[in-house]
């Protein structure tokens, strides 16, 4: 056991600006774990997988760490033990223990044909997780590592380079509509995944003049509008703005090789208090919002707000338990401002010989008891996978979403972790 806790305590690193929030808000429901997975066409070989992990880990010093508590902040210290291969469970993205007691901030799960990596948001974002998974897949299949992969700068807190004194902060949003349903008991997380061919999706999106992310956002807003109209008629909730938050990978806007969190979010909303929107109207609104909100200057405004909070003298001298309390309250207040999130990880970039062995990829967003349901999208080869993950029983949102997709002539293949008797 002693050899398993080889910690070089003389070198440590700060958490990145976004990562600082997550250990404070971690609970049995807000686990902060998200999953990126692939489905192989053939069952996995455990020994090959173990070898692949051993070969991949040395190239990711950013992930060979564990979380420790300080008096004022959490920090990361090196932890050289290989992560164990954990068997798949019925419900993904669930925590084992409190984060600072968990040796690894991520785990590798496998079962039958599925290989999944589950990362805590404390450590990295979706792009970091996808980079790790693609490197692992290359090793598993026996393909040379990606030559574009950079070892240096993995640990950089890329937010700090965007600190601009005196930059105006972004404003808070108004309160948004939330699904009114009761949560499942702790530990249950339902994942419903739909797979569609990528080309027809692109074709239909192009007809509306949208990209895939914009198209999916418009579809989800349309589905939410339908769902909330029914809920308001049943007097189960109030009419409020339907607001999606869309994460952006900042590495594409501000070049960086970091594997830590480096993302920002922007809102896309429709306000049902102003009337019902047709799908075409939603598409136009989504397109306009994407064009405005992805401006690097507006993104910097949001980052300025987060950095100012981190570097505020009072925030820095406050003891960690006090910070945890405050951050928890702040997080709950923030969660009230949006209805759902929609994350598009983009495509899994791999050589053709690896893609040939894969059937699909999955991206499961982290559970959240306040917004209750989230949507994650990823594409692999010629297939686009849309995953809805929820802590409630109602499948209303995904049903409406996939029916919209079908109505537009796009085929959908669905699977889920719902118990069979459901």
């Amino acid at each position, binding site marked *: 056991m002693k050899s398993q806790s080889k910690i070089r305590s003389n070198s440590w690193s700060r958490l990145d600006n976004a990562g600082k929030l997550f250990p404070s808000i971690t609970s*049995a429901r807000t686990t902060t774990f998200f999953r990126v997975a692939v489905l192989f066409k053939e069952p996995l070989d455990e020994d090959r997988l173990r070898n692949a992990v051993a070969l991949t880990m040395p190239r990711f010093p950013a992930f060979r760490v564990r979380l420790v508590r300080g008096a004022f902040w959490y920090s990361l210290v090196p932890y050289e033990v290989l992560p164990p291969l954990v*068997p*798949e*469970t*019925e*419900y*993904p993205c*669930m*925590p*084992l*223990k409190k984060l600072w007691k968990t040796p690894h901030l991520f785990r590798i799960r496998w*079962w*039958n044909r*599925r290989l999944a990596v589950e990362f805590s948001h404390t450590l990295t974002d979706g792009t970091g997780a996808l980079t790790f998974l693609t490197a692992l897949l290359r090793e598993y299949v026996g393909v040379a590592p990606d030559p574009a992969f950079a070892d240096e700068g993995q640990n950089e807190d890329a937010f700090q380079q965007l600190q601009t004194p005196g930059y105006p902060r972004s404003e808070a949003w108004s309160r948004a509509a939330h699904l*009114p*349903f*009761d949560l499942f008991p*702790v*530990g249950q997380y339902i*994942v*419903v*995944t*739909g797979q569609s061919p990528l080309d027809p999706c692109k074709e239909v999106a192009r007809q509306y003049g949208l990209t895939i992310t914009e198209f999916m956002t418009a579809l989800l807003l349309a589905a939410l509008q339908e769902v909330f109209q029914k809920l308001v008629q049943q*007097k*189960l*909730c*109030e009419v409020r703005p339907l607001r999606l938050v869309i994460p952006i990978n900042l590495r594409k806007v501000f070049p960086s090789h970091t594997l830590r969190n480096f993302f920002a979010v922007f809102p896309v909303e429709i306000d049902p208090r102003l009337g019902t929107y047709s799908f075409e109207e939603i598409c136009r609104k989504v397109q306009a919002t994407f064009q405005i909100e992805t401006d690097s200057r507006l993104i910097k405004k949001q980052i300025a707000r987060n950095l100012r909070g981190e570097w505020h003298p009072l925030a820095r001298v406050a003891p960690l338990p006090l910070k945890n309390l405050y951050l928890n309250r702040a997080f709950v207040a923030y969660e009230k401002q949006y209805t759902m999130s929609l994350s598009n990880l983009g495509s899994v970039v791999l050589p053709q010989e690896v893609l040939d062995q894969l059937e699909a990829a999955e991206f499961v967003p982290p559970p959240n008891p306040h917004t209750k349901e989230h949507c994650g999208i990823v594409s692999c080869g010629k297939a686009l996978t849309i995953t809805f993950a929820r802590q409630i029983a109602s*499948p209303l949102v*995904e*049903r409406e979403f*996939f*029916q919209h997709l*079908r109505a537009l002539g796009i*085929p*959908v*293949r*669905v*699977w*889920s*972790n*719902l*118990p*069979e008797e*459901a």
Partner: protein
Amino acid sequence: MSYCSRCGVEIVPWRPFCPLCSAPIPNWDHAEPPAYPHESQDQNQTFLSRHPRLKAYVVLTVVLATVVLIVAGINQAIVGRLTWSVLPIVTVAFFDLAMSSLLLKKWLSYSLLCVTSMLYLAVLNALTATNLTYSLTWFWPLGLPLTVLAWLVGTASYFIFRRPGFRGWDIPGFSLLLAALFCCGLDALVTHLLKGSWGLGWSLVVSLAVIPLALFFLFLHFVLHKRILWEQILHL
């Protein structure tokens, strides 16, 4: 290939039901392995939710037991037998019993708290009736009905605030109404115990002050906030 006739989506062969609308799928394949392993209980989660509570309860029990031993020891050393220490010991023991509700499910813990508080009052009543110089048998006329009243008010507020729908001014509205109800019950029970007859005194003043305010909050919530079209309902 299996399709859901209601949703129009293709369903993977191992699912007997559509995950979107729960409609049965006629041609599902039993032999195909499912997408996820199905276990009856995720052991990690049991560990996660129960273990810290159990640990906290054990620590609390040890601390309370130490306190009880110290109190009993002091009493024994000074008087030579247990006299005044009996009440704090009983109180601490019932407090510990009540805290064990942390380990149970929500509704069970609530029931245990109610039963424990009733038992505590009964034991307290018996002790004061036998050990002290005067006899005060207040459990049956006051302790028990008051606990039942508190339990009923607590249960009512649980169901009112947990019902689906949005929350707002209805929270202060219902809270004030329930508080007025509790005050009336308390006043009636105390009056009955002291004077031997049923009647309301100070609680009437409290209720008269509080109920209009509560009704105003409920009016704000249910009528103004939900924008009921009175013109539509009452038009001539």
